[in-house]
């Protein structure tokens, strides 16, 4: 009886088009935001922030980036890691070579650079579809891996190839404690989620989805396939680039090109598939799931008295991820987000089970 829309009438199209239509949903999101902004900072210890929450938030941003491209526009990318890397190294080099640049602007420009490269590698999508595109984006991945490893200019000729981010100074606010970093990431995650949600419920998002569902029909209603696809690549790479900056500057501090290898690309892909293609909420759920599962696998067997080697845990992780991908694709291609929605529908109808 708690989750009901009875008695709540929407009397304008504005109300009907709101992101959270039901009063219960509005209360729900307010509670979640209160917990995220106030509750967690009060309760969480440093390990939780550093090892789970900060990576989770940054990866959520990255997953939103990929989801815009894959889930909304239907263009696969196996190179999200590359666009994260481009964002990270662009921000690093900008900060290094143009020290006068405010950090926020530096982040923004890094995102734009990632977007530009994203458009470049998205160009083949105009001539080719689906599977071929996987190869084109893999090309981006391998090329970026190589460039940041072998072209010393990008890493400022450091002998080890590892680079360190500058201090996180936002107009005098120096972000250095885990809690401050958490707040920063939370702010970026909230911002990304809102902007992405706005885009997908606007003209541009609808043109992406039209291209995804049936490109021929999209064209007859006046959508230019080129504009739609390339804008999806641009926005997706911008967001991924931003996630890369956060991952490098906030989470890692110092990093090597390996931090953004193809493993990262696959992780993000799994987050999108498991969380739900075509869902902003799903990006968060997927990121949470993929972040927490390995930690759970590491600790759970020990709790019940089973000792597993690290190698074994990593193999188990592979198997579970692989099996989950297949299971979700077969049973629920819209992922955890859809399961959550079904749960809510059930609540609305409760106690009548039909």
């Amino acid at each position: 009886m708690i989750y009901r829309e009875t008695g709540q009438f929407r009397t304008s199209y504005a109300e009907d088009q709101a992101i959270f239509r039901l009063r219960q949903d509005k209360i729900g999101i307010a509670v979640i935001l209160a917990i995220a902004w106030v509750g967690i900072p009060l309760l969480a210890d440093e390990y939780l922030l550093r090892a789970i929450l900060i990576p989770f938030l940054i990866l959520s941003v990255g997953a939103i980036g990929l989801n815009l491209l894959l889930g909304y526009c239907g263009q696969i990318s196996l190179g999200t890691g590359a666009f994260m890397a481009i964002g990270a190294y662009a921000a690093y080099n900008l900060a290094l070579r143009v020290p006068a640049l405010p950090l926020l602007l530096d982040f923004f420009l890094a995102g734009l650079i990632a977007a530009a490269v994203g458009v470049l590698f998205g160009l083949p999508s105009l001539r080719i579809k689906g599977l071929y595109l996987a190869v084109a984006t893999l090309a981006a991945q391998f090329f970026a891996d190589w460039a940041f490893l072998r072209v010393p200019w990008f890493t400022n000729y450091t002998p080890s190839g590892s680079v360190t981010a500058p201090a996180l100074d936002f107009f005098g606010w120096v972000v250095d404690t885990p809690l401050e970093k958490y707040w920063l990431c939370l702010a970026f995650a909230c911002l990304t989620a809102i902007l992405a949600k706005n885009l997908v419920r606007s003209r541009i998002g609808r043109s992406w989805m039209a291209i995804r569902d049936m490109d021929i029909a999209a064209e007859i209603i006046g959508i230019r396939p080129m504009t739609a696809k390339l804008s999806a690549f641009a926005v997706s790479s911008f967001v991924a680039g931003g996630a890369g900056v956060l991952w490098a500057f906030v989470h890692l501090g110092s990093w090597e090109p390996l931090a953004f290898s193809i493993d990262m690309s696959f992780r993000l892909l799994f987050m999108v598939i498991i969380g739900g293609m075509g869902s902003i909420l799903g990006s968060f759920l997927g990121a949470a799931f993929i972040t927490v599962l390995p930690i759970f696998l590491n600790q759970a067997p020990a709790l019940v008295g089973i000792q597993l080697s690290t190698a074994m845990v990593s193999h188990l992780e592979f198997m579970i991820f692989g099996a989950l991908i297949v299971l979700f694709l077969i049973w629920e291609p819209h992922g955890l987000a859809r399961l959550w929605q079904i749960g809510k529908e059930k609540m609305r109808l409760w106690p009548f089970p039909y």
Partner: protein
Amino acid sequence: MLATAPPRPAPPATPQRRRAIGEVLLAVENISLRFGGVRALTDVSFDIRKGEIRAIIGPNGAGKSSMLNVINGFYHPQEGRIVWKGRVLPRMRPHEAAAGGIARTFQNIALFKGMSTLDNIMTGRILKMRASFIEQALWIGRGRSEELRERAFVERLLDFLEITHIRHTPVGKLPYGLQKRVELARALAMEPELLLLDEPMAGMNLEEKEDMCRFILDVNEEFGTTVALIEHDMSVVMDISDRVVVLDYGKLLADGTPDQVRNDPAVIAAYLGVAHG
């Protein structure tokens, strides 16, 4: 030449409907289309006048769908030209045809399966929206006001086509007849000057056909939209269309009012004769 074509009186076929049928809106001139060695269309010419309902009929494989595909830019003919509102259209893409005011539906429904009825029809308004990227991302200014304005427009369409109850339903879950109606709504949302309908009543039962006929007539009369449609049901064609083009093996067989076409010996021999066994 085209601009000076005199307005002609309403055709006698359906005396209860009096519409102003105007000048030539679209002229198809000597179109020939080949796929490799296969000739889909050979030297076909006809015109579509403003405000009329124009039917294109012919046996299977006569080149009817190919004709529509030529008109809205999916296929580019090897010979001939399309004159749209007095201007010769160069090789255009379908999205350019859309921007020029030509909308169409498909024989096999071409809806966006992952989207709701409302979103499907809203896509038809994309060309009417001007909000910048920033306005859309921040849901401010035109980003917000256009959404509301177009939503109101689409709601009127939903109401007109009697599909308000399914506005939030994903179209993939709708029955066939309703999907056809949503597709019509999406085309209408573009406020086209010329509406191309490829077998709008295929696979429908009698009641659904009657509904669809009524919608087509209403669209034609209330919005003044010119309609060109492909249909196999002869009684429907004869009832609602002002003029009929008959194609056979990619060639123009006859062109005229339903009565003229019905009594044309070539048509009877080649088409109706076959249809009647």
